[in-house]
């Protein structure tokens, strides 16, 4: 694969932060690619490094205590080492981002309209203020904000969470980006609103040819929207494959755990219960070998070495994972009752 063949290609990206407690390896060798019109989902528990990965693409994690390795290229343009001026043009222009918490992602003291206009003007020096405002209204209309023409004059606190997230989406779309990153766009929202926002993203997917990176901790969210899925655990990619491969033939025990804990509408949602026993490891001093080892019921002596991220199934060479178990063992071990899950003693969801 020659560089530039993909819309976006991330290879062996590492991000670490110097902190008081030590060096936090938030992202530890992440690689994936994104094509035009494709949706790639990055899935993992809280703290697995999804947001850091996403934000690093825009240079938003740059700070004196951060250090970077590896590369991320947008149509062959290196992002990790891009100058501030290059980044400024890429941000919002070629790569746009929607953040997790719509309640705090808009500046409280400016009107909605002027915040969208601000982005349009930042990338289009020709446009007049009033044209930009018209575009802002059209965008708000497009993402389903009713009475957009009146509501451009509202302040963020006058909007509900879902509406604010729509504003964020409108803003992200304002300069027709090539890549759209949505970092847990629905996590902070009510279930019904979540569904609406996901619908909005689905429509977008059809209407634009942008590549979309959808970050989430809930595999259920990506079930019918993603083309490919990257599963992250403690800063590393542990499995990567197409939607079908991940859902129907998952190879990594951590993925099984995620699949087992998808909150089902037909059951009581006890979303706050950690459905994979234990907690993610410290990123300052993670366990040696496979990071998942302390929580993995299937761990054995080999797991103290780091497994490589490679394909284990000859028929799907693009489906890679990081686990020492053989394909056969995996097929047996992942079966919990009538569904896929992590070990038999998984807490029963009441």
């Amino acid at each position, binding site marked *: 694969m020659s560089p530039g063949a993909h819309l976006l290609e991330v290879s062996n990206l590492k991000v670490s932060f110097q902190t008081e407690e030590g060096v936090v390896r938030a992202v530890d060798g992440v690689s994936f690619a994104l094509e035009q019109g494709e949706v790639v989902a990055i899935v993992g528990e809280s703290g697995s490094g999804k947001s850091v990965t996403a*934000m690093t693409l*825009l240079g*938003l994690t740059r700070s004196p205590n951060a250090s970077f390795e590896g590369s991320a290229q947008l149509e062959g343009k290196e992002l990790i080492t891009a100058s*501030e001026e290059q980044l*400024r*043009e*890429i*941000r*919002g*222009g070629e790569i*746009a*981002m929607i*953040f997790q*918490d719509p309640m*705090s*992602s*808009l*500046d*409280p*003291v400016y009107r909605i309209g002027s915040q969208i206009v*601000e*982005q349009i003007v*930042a*990338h289009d020096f020709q446009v007049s203020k009033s044209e930009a405002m018209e575009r802002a209204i059209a965008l708000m209309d497009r993402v389903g904000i009713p009475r957009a023409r009146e509501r451009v004059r509202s*302040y963020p*606190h006058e909007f509900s969470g879902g509406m604010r997230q729509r504003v*964020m989406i409108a*803003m992200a779309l304002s*300069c027709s980006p090539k890549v759209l990153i949505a970092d847990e766009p629905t996590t902070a929202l009510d279930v019904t609103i979540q569904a609406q926002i996901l619908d909005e993203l689905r429509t977008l997917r059809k209407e634009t040819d942008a590549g979309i990176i959808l970050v989430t901790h809930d595999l259920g969210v990506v079930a019918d929207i993603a083309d490919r899925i990257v599963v992250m655990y403690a800063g590393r990619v542990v499995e990567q494959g197409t939607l079908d491969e991940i859902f129907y033939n998952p190879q990594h025990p951590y993925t099984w755990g995620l699949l087992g804990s998808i909150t089902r509408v037909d059951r009581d949602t006890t979303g706050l219960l950690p459905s994979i026993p234990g907690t993610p490891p410290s990123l300052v001093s993670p366990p040696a070998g496979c990071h998942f080892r302390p929580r993995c019921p299937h761990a054995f002596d080999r797991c103290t070495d780091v497994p490589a991220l490679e394909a284990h199934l000859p028929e799907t060479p693009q489906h890679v994972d990081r686990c020492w178990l053989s394909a056969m063992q995996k097929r047996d071990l992942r079966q919990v009752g009538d569904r896929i899950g992590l070990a038999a003693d998984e807490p029963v969801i009441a």
Partner: protein
Amino acid sequence: MARFAVRRLASMVAVMFAISILTFLLFQVLPNSDPSTRLAGRTASPTQIAKIRSDWGFDKPIYVQYIKTMGKILNGTVTSYQQQLPVEDQIRQDLPTTLSLAIGAGVIWLALGILFGVLSAWRAGRWLDRGLTVLSLVGVSMPVFFLGAVLSYYIGDKARILPAGDYVALTSDPWQWFKHMLMPWFALSVLFIGVYSRILRSTILDTINDDYVRTARAKGLSERQVMIRHVLRNSLIPIVSLWGLDFASVLGGGAILTETVFNLHGVGQYAAQSVEGLDIPPVLVITMFGAFAVVLLSAVVDIVYAALDPRIRL
């Protein structure tokens, strides 16, 4: 917005009423001595004391005393025993001086506080930040009357760069007014500059990590735009409301030390001179009006604050 303003002003009136009661209690009831004797002053004759007792109603029940006290204050018929003049006339005469001092100093401390705070945050951790931090810590550790005395000695008496004290009315000679006020303004400002620059510094450093600032960066704004339009604009909100409150408190009597050390005949110095002569009536009136001024201005601040920050405009 209008509803908010009306509500806020109504609660202000209630607080003023409570303040009038508390002030009355502090002066007339709490002390362990005869209020007539205290109000009459050191040199009073028994007949004078008796007159005060009946004038203020100290031989009557306590609520009559309160009503009489408030009546005298509101009518402007409280007199000082030292000059035997109505207190409120004197206050009216001294007010322009206090206003000159408060407004000038307020402008200086807000401007320099913001400037130093921004510089400090911008250079956080570098030598400029450290230098400014040291300066502001020294500033907040320095009693204003000590600073005033030292300044007026070295700059006024010794170097003769600026006049060492006294007040010249703005209306009689603006340039002299300015020259005479410069040192008092500066002396009064030092503490606030120190406080403001440090608050602004930490607010800015907090705000930089706010989500909407990240959004602003992600939009592709230049660092300058992010800093000025989003970080600074939001960080200034608490500073501006603080300024209103501090300004109110300086106007309401907080400049008393500065006025006294620079011999500015303002309301504060009037209070100080009355304290020196144990002349209680002026202190009573000034204390109450001072607290009133603070309450009134903080209501104004809240209303302005609501205008600045759309979140509380309900």
